[in-house]
């Protein structure tokens, strides 16, 4: 009996030693995080350059925005055909609504596209210069994946449905920025910037409009 017990103890001790060795060489997770799900990591796939463009955009204002947006998909009826004709007047039984709440941080870059500057927009006379700048516009609206946080998600949301919610958030961001007069502010900064630049390159009399 004692011999059998000793054998069992040696067997258990042997198993424990094997587990500890496996944990050391990372074949098994440690006891402390044995029930923690491993993070899903993406493969390091190549990055392909599809287009190279030259720009001449003067960015004068960056607007940072944080918006909460939600969307609900109404639950569909469980029974599309009534079980009994007499039940039709009763409220239909439905699946629960699907709901998603996203918090999005984005930024908008506003300024002028100097590529639209034409020969007639620049007038130089000795140490005087007059320049008419193109209209200010929103050059970029940036809402990257890292800018989004899913605050709540109930039900199944397909990739395209979530994209639609994110686009809704981006459009709201643009509308808010326009309400905050981002373009007139960007124009004012562009005029000051261009005036400073022209003075720094030697012009004494500068007119920017």
């Amino acid at each position: 009996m004692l011999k059998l017990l000793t054998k069992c103890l040696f067997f258990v001790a042997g198993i424990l030693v094997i587990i500890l060795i496996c944990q050391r060489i990372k074949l098994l997770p440690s006891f402390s995080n044995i029930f923690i799900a491993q993070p899903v990591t993406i493969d390091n796939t190549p990055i392909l350059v599809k287009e190279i463009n030259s720009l001449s955009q003067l960015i004068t204002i960056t607007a940072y925005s944080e918006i909460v947006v939600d969307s609900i998909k109404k639950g569909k009826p469980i029974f599309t055909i009534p079980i009994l004709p007499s039940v039709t007047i009763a409220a239909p039984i439905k699946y629960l609504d699907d709901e998603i709440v996203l918090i999005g941080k984005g930024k908008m870059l506003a300024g002028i596209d100097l590529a639209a500057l034409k020969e007639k927009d620049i007038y130089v006379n000795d140490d005087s210069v007059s320049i008419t700048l193109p209209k200010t516009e929103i050059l970029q609206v940036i809402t990257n994946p890292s800018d989004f946080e899913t605050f709540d998600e109930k039900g199944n949301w397909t990739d395209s449905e979530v994209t639609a919610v994110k686009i809704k958030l981006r459009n709201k961001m643009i509308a808010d920025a326009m309400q905050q007069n981002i373009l007139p502010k960007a124009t004012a900064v562009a005029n000051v910037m261009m005036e400073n630049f022209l003075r720094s390159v030697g012009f004494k009399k500068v007119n920017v409009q």
Partner: protein
Amino acid sequence: MQEVMALQQMSDLATAQYVVTKIIKANDNQTWYKIGDRKILMSCKATLTAGIDLSAITPNNVHIDDKNIDLQLPHAKLISINIKPEDVQQVYESENLLRDPFTSEERNTLATQAENQIKNSIDSLGILEAGEKNATLFITNFLTRLGYKKVTIHFA
């Protein structure tokens, strides 16, 4: 919907834009107690913009000699990386019967990893060099239109 907004004055001249693509590939089979695996494949397109900060130009960086001008510009920097929501698309997904599909939060986490990989590859893409080259070209043309005969630009 609720929103918070802050404005910041900038003075960046964006001169180069790269459009890059990347395949996002992941296999969720590393958690030992989850039976079966699930795989996802997404495509991602990012627009990178580089340029120079014009506010760094001070009178000390400009030397004028009649119709000749020597201008010292700051080195190009990455102005933005822009991955539009519609530019991240799920191409394929499969999961074992015992596993749930990827949630939108999980898909977004994978896209964020791709965003970070693109950010970390900026130096190897050569966009900063292109930004400086295009800035030289644009400012040289602009100053020539303003009447300068010889324009010398260097970066420091």
